[in-house]
């Protein structure tokens, strides 16, 4: 299998889908490489810096038969288009009674850890989860990035692809050919028996690092990656926790009303999973501050490997069986 970067995998996904379906077009203020060379200026559109109109144009064109990919570049810039995301894209199909489909894909980078400071280090996927009406993908590996983005482009609904900045240069094996990963299917990245770590995006690799370190101490960690936040494969998450009885959820968004909160709720709301728990659910998230610039401050704001390990030790301290 080829080893390619996360960024390269995403570019391949777009190029392959544009080759496959002439209705796929892509719009952004800038592109990596020279996609116009292969696809021409009609389908590859350099745009003004106008996120609101781009977001709405993608939606309108999708409702009229195209399959647009709108790249906000950074999720930061999507906030300029809040009306089109919140009032239009997430509601348009339902409020019109399902009379048309809107197959538009919105792409953006997300997350901190690379010294870009508060405005450009955000992980707001839970805001989008809250809207009910957008599908959300959040890959952690090059293979998932390619397969999920291709599935997202083919999906007949608005899909937001959150692409973690810290993973852009990460490399990994990507299957050849038409590699698709279905939306709404979580992936057990490492099987284990003592504790489950649910990681998102960059923190999947961090969780795997922690799992490796703890294996040397005789602790067996299972790492589960939801991969898609809407729809969320809650059954795979619950099955893991029912097996291990302990769970730590790791994400670089702040904990308030977060994907981590939602996952925690969905785990404990299920009676079978609740009864299997041997320790309280733990979240390891960012400190709720605007992400600061200076490296020691930024590192203090975002979850670190030691924080994850400490949380694992803590859930393992609980008695092996519930007293009842």
């Amino acid at each position, binding site marked *: 299998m080829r080893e390619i970067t996360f960024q390269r995998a995403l570019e391949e996904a777009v190029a392959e889908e544009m080759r496959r379906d002439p209705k796929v*077009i892509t719009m952004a203020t800038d592109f990596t490489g020279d996609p116009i060379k292969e696809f021409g200026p*009609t*389908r590859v*559109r350099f*745009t*003004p810096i*106008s996120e*609101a*109109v*781009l*977001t*709405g*144009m*993608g*939606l*309108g*064109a*999708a*409702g*009229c*038969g*195209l399959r*647009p990919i709108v790249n906000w570049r950074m999720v930061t810039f999507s906030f300029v288009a809040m*009306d*089109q995301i919140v*009032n*239009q894209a997430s509601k*348009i*199909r*339902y*409020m*019109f*009674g*399902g*009379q*048309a*489909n809107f*197959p538009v894909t919105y792409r953006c980078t997300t997350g901190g850890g690379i010294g870009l400071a508060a405005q450009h280090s955000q992980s707001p996927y839970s805001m989008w989860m809250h809207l*009910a*009406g957008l*599908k959300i993908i959040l890959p952690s590996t090059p293979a998932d990035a390619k397969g999920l983005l291709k599935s997202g482009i083919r*999906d*007949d*609904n608005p899909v937001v692809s959150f692409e973690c900045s810290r993973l852009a240069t990460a490399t990994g094996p990507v299957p050849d050919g038409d590699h698709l990963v279905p939306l709404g299917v979580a992936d057990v990245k490492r099987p284990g028996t003592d504790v489950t770590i649910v990681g998102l995006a960059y923190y999947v690799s961090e969780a795997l690092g922690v799992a490796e370190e703890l294996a040397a101490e005789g602790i067996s960690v299972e790492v589960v990656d939801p991969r898609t936040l809407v729809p969320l494969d809650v059954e795979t998450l619950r099955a893991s926790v029912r097996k291990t009885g302990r769970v730590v959820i790791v994400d670089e968004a702040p904990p308030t009303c977060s994907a981590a909160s939602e996952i925690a709720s969905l785990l404990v709301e299920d009676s079978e999973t609740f009864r299997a728990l041997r320790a309280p659910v733990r979240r390891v998230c960012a400190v709720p501050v605007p992400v600061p610039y200076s490296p020691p401050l930024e590192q203090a704001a975002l979850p670190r490997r030691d924080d994850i390990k400490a949380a694992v030790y803590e859930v393992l301290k609980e008695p092996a069986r519930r007293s009842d």
Partner: protein
Amino acid sequence: MTLDKPQIAAMLRSMVLIREFDELAIQLRVAGKIYGAVHPYVGQEAVAVGVCANLTPQDRVTSTHRGHGHCIAKGADIRRMMAELFGRVDGYCKGKGGSMHIADFAVGMLGANGIVGGGLPIACGAALAAQIDGRGDVTVCFFGDGAAAEGEFHEALNIAGVWKLPIVFVCENNQYAANNAVAVQHPRVDIAAHAAVYAMPGLVIDGNDVLEVHASAGEAVARARRGEGPSLLECKTYRWHFHAMRAAIPPETRPADEIASWKARDPIARLEQHALSRGLLSAAEVGAIQERVRGDLNEAVAFAEQSPFPDPKDLLVDMFAR
């Protein structure tokens, strides 16, 4: 272009239907038979009808919160519109949308919109799709003077100008953005002045003269069809009623003489006068149009009332395409 008798009759019928539909909607809301908000289009009928008379079924329009007139002018079925107001399953949105979200994609009506300015980006997307399809289809984007103060208006005109999109921006300047007069919202009262900045033709016209609207919109639509790009058409008009009502009709806050002066320029009376004075329609024919509209609306209400309410078990249907 001189319009013949059937065209004049069709435009008159459409304008009368729009007016009577919204007068009826007000009554139905007061009576508690429909829900939510009503934004009557009464007084502005010449804009929707004059513009849409230039469009084919393949052409598309986007609308506003005050959208019933655009729906009717684009060819939507008033029975399904009425059923939507009644919140029934035979409504255009199966009762999920209501007045502010009526759409009929089959006739190119891409939806009313509850957000001022929200339809402009969507219209640009429809125009982009038409441009890429290359069949010469055009998109008309209806919006009000209030939307011209929104960022989405400027972003939409900018990109439409840069990409020469086949779109006609139709500003219905009804003199008030919600309850605030144009002069307190804009440093210049002519919204069409923005056209020059975005490198497109801009025209201020009498939005209460359906023949002038039809002719001016016709030129803009033809220009878009030829691939020569967008236009901005500002139609000066006036809404006769309040901005919005819920359970009760709100008190009038505008000057009485201002309202009277605009009512003296009633777009329907002017078209009737034009048709009668030129012998295009007889008084009996005008009466018959009004009679038929009343009959059609009675039928629409009957259709809506016999349609069932949605079943709560279908609450999640239409969330996502499969």
